[in-house]
């Protein structure tokens, strides 16, 4: 940009492909008695993050922390209770019907389970072709060519289009899922634990494929995983979730080098490692117990029941998500403003 006037006049595409603001997804459970209020699962409870174009944002956390629900809400596959979702600067939260269908071209999803995510009654070719047919991309012949091209791109042979999903191995099925997600040339691909169900040796094949495709097509990933090694390998930024909220969010290097939130620290400590340096880290935190239920979560800090540093204030007052240093966000009372985490402060 040359001058302030130029930048104000033009309307360039935003740097962030995806912006999520105050997202809440609550599910009502059946009421216990005729007059009891219906209990509400606060699956996602005020989540905000940005994802830069062409980058990968990792979402980590224990099971039940709301990762999948966040992903589904971003894809508009789970009901959004509250909040804004902006894709390419356009609000997609309130869209429905045709308008929402048109946006689907730009965002796609890869699921965790390569078995339940493919319709057993359709052939692989039909599965990969469906997005083109449903969203009217190209004409008939160009679709045939595109499907064959997609098969090659993900490392399958075009002849395999005629096979049914059960005739493929787990890794190959996941490749079909990747091809389906790529079909409409989306900007955003949400990957919900894309390798968790795969064998160790097959994981590498899929991770390499995802990285190669990202480079080739400038894709933006929202990458969900509970495996921190995989997240460190795949992501540029990482958001850590606990009980429906983001508790820490930073770029990969700061988050793994200098985790501020006690929960992030506990998560990192828990990873069994072959590396003696990591294993003997002085700041290891062992958690006890399980996360509390997301039905009507406790007041104050949601991590207080398991946090070794919890104080009176933590149980009473909910910490805000504060920004410390360069874009390192953390939700904890005891992290000082200059970024000293509680486990450092206490010794």
């Amino acid at each position: 940009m040359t001058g302030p006037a130029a930048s104000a006049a033009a309307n360039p595409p935003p740097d962030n492909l995806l912006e999520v603001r105050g997202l809440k997804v609550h599910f009502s459970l059946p009421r216990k008695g005729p007059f009891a209020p219906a209990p509400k699962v606060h699956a996602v409870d005020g989540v905000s993050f940005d994802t830069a174009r062409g980058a990968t944002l990792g979402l980590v956390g224990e099971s039940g922390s709301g990762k999948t629900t966040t992903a589904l809400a971003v894809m508009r596959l789970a009901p959004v209770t509250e909040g804004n979702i902006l894709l390419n600067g356009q609000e997609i939260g309130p869209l429905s019907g045709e308008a929402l269908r048109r946006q689907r071209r730009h965002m796609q999803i890869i699921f965790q389970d390569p078995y339940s995510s493919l319709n057993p009654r359709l052939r692989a070719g039909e599965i990969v072709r469906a997005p083109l047919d449903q969203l009217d991309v190209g004409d008939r012949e160009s679709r045939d060519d595109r499907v064959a091209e997609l098969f090659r791109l993900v490392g399958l042979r075009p002849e395999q289009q005629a096979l049914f999903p059960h005739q493929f191995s787990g890794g190959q099925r996941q490749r079909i899922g990747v091809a389906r997600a790529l079909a409409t040339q989306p900007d955003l691909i949400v990957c919900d634990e894309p390798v968790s169900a795969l064998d160790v040796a097959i994981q590498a094949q899929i991770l390499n494929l995802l990285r190669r495709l990202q480079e080739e097509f400038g894709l933006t990933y929202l990458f969900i995983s509970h495996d921190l090694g995989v997240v460190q390998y795949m992501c540029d930024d990482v958001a850590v979730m606990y009980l429906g909220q983001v508790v820490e969010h930073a770029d990969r290097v700061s988050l793994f080098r200098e985790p501020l939130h006690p929960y992030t620290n506990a998560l990192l400590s828990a990873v069994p490692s072959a590396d003696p340096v990591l294993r003997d880290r002085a700041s290891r935190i062992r958690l006890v117990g399980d996360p509390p239920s997301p039905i009507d979560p406790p007041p104050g800090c949601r991590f207080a029941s398991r946090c070794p540093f919890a104080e009176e204030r933590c149980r009473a007052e909910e910490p805000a998500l504060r920004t410390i240093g360069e874009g390192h966000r953390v939700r904890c009372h005891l992290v000082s403003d200059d970024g000293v985490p509680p486990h450092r402060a206490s010794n």
Partner: protein
Amino acid sequence: MTESTPAVPAEEPVVIEVERPWREVWRMFRANRAAVAGLVTLLLIVLVTVLGPFVYPVDPFAAAGPLLLPPGEQGFLLGTDQQGRDLVIGLLYGSQSTLTVGAAAAAITITIGILFGALAGYYRGWVEEVLMRITEFFQVLPPLLLAMVVVLLFSPSIYSISIAIGVVSWPATARLVRAEFLRLRELDFVKAERAIGARNARIIWTIILPNAAPPLIVSAALSVGIAILFEAGLAFLQLSDPNVMSWGYLISVNRPQILEAWWPVTFPGLAIFITVLSVSLIGDGLNDAFNPKLRQR
């Protein structure tokens, strides 16, 4: 093929044959011998039903010989019933209405059942509330009473009887379909369909319904049987069309004499049994034939 296929790497075959879908289904169906037997039997029954009246153009209600003659005597292959009617003639003429009622009532059952179950299970919310309340309403009414009301309202005929049976038996199918939809709609491949912009109609009819087919086919075959038996029950209450011969009618009029003469009840009963069995064998075969997991060689 005249040439042998070239050696392929041990890992995976390169040549993938594609068969035309219906030929493939037929090949799979043919491989199931029980299903083929069922199909042949049913076709025979239909053939006999269609040709019977031309071969023996008689009044099926007219007495043809002595009362309650045992099978094989005086040239009556299956004997006679309590009014001296030839059972062979009775079965021949009775099959037409019996098969019509069975097929029509099952069709009604399945259609309404799928419609209510699919919409309730897919859309949930108030749609489900309303549809399931209606379903429960029909389910709590005593079926025989409901059927009687329908028949009396429209005067007994094959059509009113079919409708009556369909109307009382669809709720079970609706509940079954709804349960399948509730299960399937949460699977990832259905979410994936929504993610690629598929419209609800496609998801319901071409994605979820085929996956719900296995229990549905079994229940359809059963409902043909239930309809035939129900028709017999209505006939027993004298609620069938008195001018139309049916297997149910034969059973009901001859039931009081069952201790003296087993044959006038047993042969129509056997006919019903064989029909229902062949329908359910065919259902089984269709189910396998449409299941991709069993299709590969």
